[in-house]
């Protein structure tokens, strides 16, 4: 249920960026959601709708693009796709990875109407 907190943080950013660009209304929002983030897209969509009410982003279309996880093994240098509950390197068995992607929650673009 922390999707509500995420939606509130997202709307804050959106409203500020829209104001900086003198936009009167936000029509569409694109979000990159890492697959390792504990986010349920349907709940985030509903939370976004609710939090947006009364802001310039009310009614905006939210597109969530899932970013698949990718790790780099520091043991053998191979890249691999970890499962959320298993980060062992499939090549050498080490647990020593850098998460390259899949951990992010990034606002990537807004489409706005200007006066």
């Amino acid at each position, binding site marked *: 249920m922390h999707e509500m907190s995420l939606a509130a*943080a997202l709307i804050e950013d959106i409203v500020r960026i829209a104001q900086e660009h003198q936009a009167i209304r936000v029509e569409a929002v694109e979000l990159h959601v890492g697959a390792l983030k504990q986010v349920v897209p349907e709940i985030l969509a509903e939370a976004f709708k609710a939090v947006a009410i009364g802001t310039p982003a009310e009614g905006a279309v939210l597109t969530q693009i899932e970013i698949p996880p990718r790790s780099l093994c520091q043991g053998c240098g191979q890249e691999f796709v970890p499962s959320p509950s298993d980060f062992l390197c499939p090549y050498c068995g080490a647990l020593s990875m850098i998460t390259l992607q899949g951990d992010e929650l990034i*606002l990537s673009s807004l489409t706005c109407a200007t006066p």
Partner: protein
Amino acid sequence: MKINVVKNVLKANDLVAEKNRQAFREAGILAINLISSPGSGKTTLLEKTLAALSGRDPSIVIVGDLQTSRDAERVADRAFQVTQINTGMSCHLYANQIASSLPALDLEQASFLFIENVGNLVCPGEFDLGENLKVILLSIPEGDDKVAKYPTVFRAADLVLLTKIDLLDAFQYDLKRVESDLRKLNAVAPLLPFSATTGAGMEDWLKWLQQQKAAKLGAQARFISE
């Protein structure tokens, strides 16, 4: 008009968390975020820990719950200072709530700050509070399958306390499964069996706390001398 941005949605929380961490560093206090399901023994752990630390290491407790100040009342006698945060409907603490609590607390006079998060194995894992360490409690009655089911918090753990270990024989419980699931996620966090009832693991837990404090203060001294 399309505006392209690259904005981390949790940046605002993370910035406040970083300020909290700086306040802890300046005060020389070690901040520990206690995360677990409801009822796995966070408050009982605190009761026992504060009793053991009292005198030598005064400790501050910040307790997060949806409602009531019951947990704060339970530890009030043994803690140097206690703050209860009622989160209302929120299933986790935010960095901001910790920041708002700090002015009323005398961080410099205490050794440890224990932040008892809202009972929940999911959401608290996503919000940095500025703590130095995350301790995850997993109680025996919850079952031996939970590490793989809730991987995010266990990935981030600095220590996993396997609480209510005295109940081990009452359940069909596979300790090896917990250990092997944890080692697919986290190479370093020790897995420490613990019982507030029998006292098992208490000495190791207190030793771990002192080691972490010494390591942190040592690192700080090196940082200052450089």
